[in-house]
């Protein structure tokens, strides 16, 4: 009897050290990392670099799985997109980019508004949606 009481006391003591760990229903959905950044208008000098998409939203997200870009300081760029399909496949492009005010234009395509986060992440917003591009350091 004494041993049982001792075990019970130990368990109660242990339980007191363990707080309830029920997840709030609001937190059940996995969060996406791009949600909490602070964005500011980008400068042309902040664009050159290599980027990988972190989040795609809008109509383009229906068919795009990911994009990768490389912007050169001299105005050249190359990019690859993984498109949904049967099977999914990559498309590769290259051309020249131009920057005016806060708008980026690739070749003669539509303009995209560019914002940048403190960690160098870019956000491109155009008529078809928004792309969050994480800055990468290619090996």
């Amino acid at each position, binding site marked *: 009897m004494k041993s*049982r009481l001792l*075990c*019970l006391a130990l*368990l*109660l003591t242990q*339980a007191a050290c*363990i*707080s*309830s*760990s*029920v*997840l709030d*229903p609001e937190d*059940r*959905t*996995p969060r*996406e990392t791009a949600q909490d950044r602070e964005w500011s208008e980008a400068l042309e000098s902040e664009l050159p670099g290599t980027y990988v998409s972190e*989040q*795609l*939203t*809008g*109509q*383009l*997200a*229906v*068919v*795009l799985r990911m*994009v990768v870009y490389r912007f050169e300081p001299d105005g050249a760029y*190359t*990019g690859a*997109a993984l*498109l*949904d*399909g*049967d*099977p999914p*496949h990559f*498309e*590769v*492009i*290259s*051309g020249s980019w131009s920057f005016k005010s806060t708008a*980026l234009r*690739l*070749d003669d*395509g*539509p*303009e*995209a508004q560019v914002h940048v986060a403190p960690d160098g992440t870019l956000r*491109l917003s*155009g*008529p*078809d949606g928004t*792309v969050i591009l994480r800055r990468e350091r290619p090996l």
Partner: protein
Amino acid sequence: MIKQGLQLLGALSLLAWTAVGVAAWVQVGDGVHVRFSQGPVEADESDQLLADRVAMLSTDLDELVAALDANLRRIAAAIDGEHEGVAAQSARTQERLSALEAALPSALQARETAGALSATLARLEALANADSAQMIPTGEPLVNVDTTPATLEPAPVVITEPEPEVVATQVVRKRSFLAFDLPSRDFRFEGKQQFEILGDLSRVGFDAKSTLHDFTGISNRVQGSFTVDLAHPENGISGVVTIPADSLDTGLAGRDEALRVHLDSIEFAEVRFEPTSLALTRSDASRLELDGLLGGKLTIRGVSREIVVPIQAHVDESRRLTLEGEWQLLLSDYGVPIPNQLGVVSVDDEVRVWLRLRSRARTRNVSH
């Protein structure tokens, strides 16, 4: 004196007689017409003239009737001919319609093949424009081209619901601000589609109550896919969603180990759900939302039971279909031993299971 009176009377009488005569002449003169003729011959000529005029009018009338009759006959003949022409044209149209209906399956298959060839052509053009031959491994085909077009030997195809707009979107491409030519297409409810679970962005978990404290177990390793027509889920839903039984994480290593033992995760490696029905309770295609009752077979520890889960689904800003739902289950229904320590600390038999799934519609339609 008398003599003068008589003269005056005589004059007055003469005047009165004259006045009466004049008045009578005036009154009778308007009603009397006097004709002068030379005899009965003139009257016969007038009648003859009248008779001639009547005869001439009769002749004209006969000619008019004859002309009208001829014209009416021509009009009737023309109407009959036109009717025959319309009937013949209708017959030809019916024949063409029948021929088109007979050729429809082959045409749809040919169109699908054309769409695939167009997509392949676009990819070839993109590759050519990219001027990046070094990126293409030598010895491997540039693209996968199906060289057996269905138009040569049309295979039997069962088309339950033609979706011409889907085929069109495979061909029509639009230059996006990302400089890629992307198919102009948006999420839709209509049509049977296959949705793949995005494992990294999905969760399945449970909330359990124990004697001392409550806890949650979560699995982030959700896999699977399902096929459904969101506009007509009554046509059926199929697929499978699984989690590894040993992937449930409660935040305590010892409790996780005990959970694996209770679920016998070595013998029964996965928890499995196979949806079989979806009954809508609310659907708003314009907002891309729906609520419903998802039925299916849930298998835990090798024991399968039919369940019905209330779910809410919507399409998020990344055009992914998200599913949320939760329900209660009894561990004992699935043969899961109730965790119990020394008969003092135990977990409730009833646990609340919940799911948060994100899924992506595959591009191609499913036609089976």
